[in-house]
């Protein structure tokens, strides 16, 4: 779906821009077991998503202790890591997600002019 859009004409691109407010988010959070940082990150991101992306997000929490292969595939080095799979482009956030402002900015949930 995303690829089609990118390849489409300017018109469609503008349409897509209009739609951006209601775009669907696919987020993956990679944590390492139940470390304090992991737990904090999970609750923080859940809170943000509920507040700003209610109803249009999908959050997957993955424990890389359980699935180390995924860490290699996703180029994870730090934990916790949040990856915005959709909408493109791909974004990575590392840390316990305590810096809400930064996350909102990174997820394009806050117009840049405001800051």
């Amino acid at each position, binding site marked *: 779906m995303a690829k089609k859009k990118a390849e489409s004409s300017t018109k469609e691109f503008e349409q897509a821009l209009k739609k951006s407010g209601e775009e669907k988010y696919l987020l993956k959070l990679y944590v390492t077991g139940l*470390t304090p940082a992991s737990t904090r990150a999970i609750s923080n991101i859940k809170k943000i998503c509920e507040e700003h992306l209610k109803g249009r997000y999908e959050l997957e929490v993955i424990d890389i202790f359980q699935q180390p292969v995924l*860490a290699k595939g996703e180029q994870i080095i730090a*934990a916790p890591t949040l990856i915005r799979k959709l909408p493109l482009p791909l974004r990575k956030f*590392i840390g*316990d997600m*305590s810096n809400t402002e*930064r996350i909102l900015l990174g997820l394009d949930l806050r117009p840049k002019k405001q800051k």
Partner: protein
Amino acid sequence: MPKHSKEKGPAVSGLKKCPTGIQGLDEITQGGLPMGRPTLVCGSAGCGKTLLAMEFLVRGAVQFNEPGVFIAFEENAEELSKNVASLGFDLDDLARKKKIVVDYVYVERSEIEETGEYDLEGLFIRLDHAIKSVGAKRVVLDTIESLFSGLSNQNILRAELRRLFRWLKEKGVTAIITGEKGEGTLTRHGLEEYVADCVIMLDHRVTEQISTRRLRVVKYRGSLHGTNEYPFIIDETGFSVLPITSVGLNHKATDERVPTGIPRLDAMLDGKGYYRGSSILVTGTAGTGKTSLALHLVNESCRRGERCLYLASEESAAQIIRNGKSIGIDLSPWVKKGLLHFHVARPTYSGLEMQLVTANKLIREFRPAIAVVDPITGLTNIGTDLEIKAMLLRLIDMLKNSYITTLCTSLTHGVHSLEQTEVAVTSLMDTWLLVRDLEYNGERTRGLYVLKSRGMAHSNQIREFLITDNGIDLTDVYVGQGMVLTGAARKVREMKEEAEASARREETERVKRELERKRLIMEAKINEIRSQYESAEEELLACLKELELKEKGLASDRGVIADMRKADASKDKKETGKKPDRRENR
């Protein structure tokens, strides 16, 4: 030398070592890198850090059956395997065989937002997974400093790195961590703070447009190690470090001889030739036949089935072979048989150290019995006398340790004294042959001396050195009447001498004949006298006889008369017969 280090290394340090398999490096570190500990390899860009690390892994996997993990921060697996393929390492194959795992860690600052506290557990997990997947004993992190550019929180990073190195030690893997050289520090981000067990520094220096790679063990906790800078090369077979100081004066010495290929020269050298494993220096001005002497040795040795290494720096192999043919030496069959190997390179092609390393490599691989360095003076272009002397010293020691008979040629220029080489190496040499031009009466001829030859009774006399279609020939020079002559002058002199000699011979004959004649005359005279005497003797003897007879006759007559007179009694006959006799005798 390797034997020496193997014996000494672990005994002294008590530290377990992990052999790298890299030529020379194990000798410098006396056995390898500290086992189960991280080692830092640092150096500026392009000095071979990644290759060193990769060779450590590959050799570990292939030679020591120790699988390895390569965590690449700068190149991905594909690029890496392509890059090291040029060194003959098949990374893909090793990966298939589960000997090596390459994990590319991609860190891009622009793609990462830092939102609070984090750790590098992700990296740990990946590393752990990779180690477990092949049962790795060796790990390379190349270059972990990339993390510093990818992540902004230095405090977290440093704490995590410390944790990482501790973790690696706990895992018991032998690790190499590479780091870029910083200003005034070993690494840009001070990695040496964390990896303190062993630090190896690589350097790539360019002096007078000639580059030399050097390696130095800065630190090796709990072990003795070579402290010098050692030159190394990277070529199609990987790393090659030359541990120079390990070369000592403990080479063997035998009585075995190596014929020179020239019977008369053998005769000059105690009748047997050079000592095996000795070093021979041939000096001389241009065009005096130094190379020809070398070719004779090579030819003779190849004929015996010995391997010869020819390090040439002025002529190409083809040219040497062609020139050899002109004096009746055909080297091409030996090249075909693999007995003769030419290594031809202009000295300016690489630094002195490099040439040493190259020579060392060739010696190790080719294992020659004879080596020829033609000429050593070619090196003067690329270094100071001191450097060259040091280099030649190492080269000669290296060759002697390998029990290789070495012949070096050295060109002397007119300005120098003939008995002084441009690079003062004569003291290193066991045998020194001097070929010199002898100019006399408008003709140049060549003369050969044995200036010295350690440990043998050699000839002190000059020989005329003739280069003929059938090779070198040594003939006696004209020595006499306070002169030494060669060439045509010798011939003329010899002819003149011959004439003089024949004249002298005639004179002698004449005197002898005169003497004989005198003797004959004398004898004739003696004979004459003798015959005169003999005739006189005869006459006198006859005369004497007659007189005696007469005397006898008289006596008997007297007796008869007495008898007739009956002068005495008959018993007195005898007395009377005797008494007159006595009287007669008186």
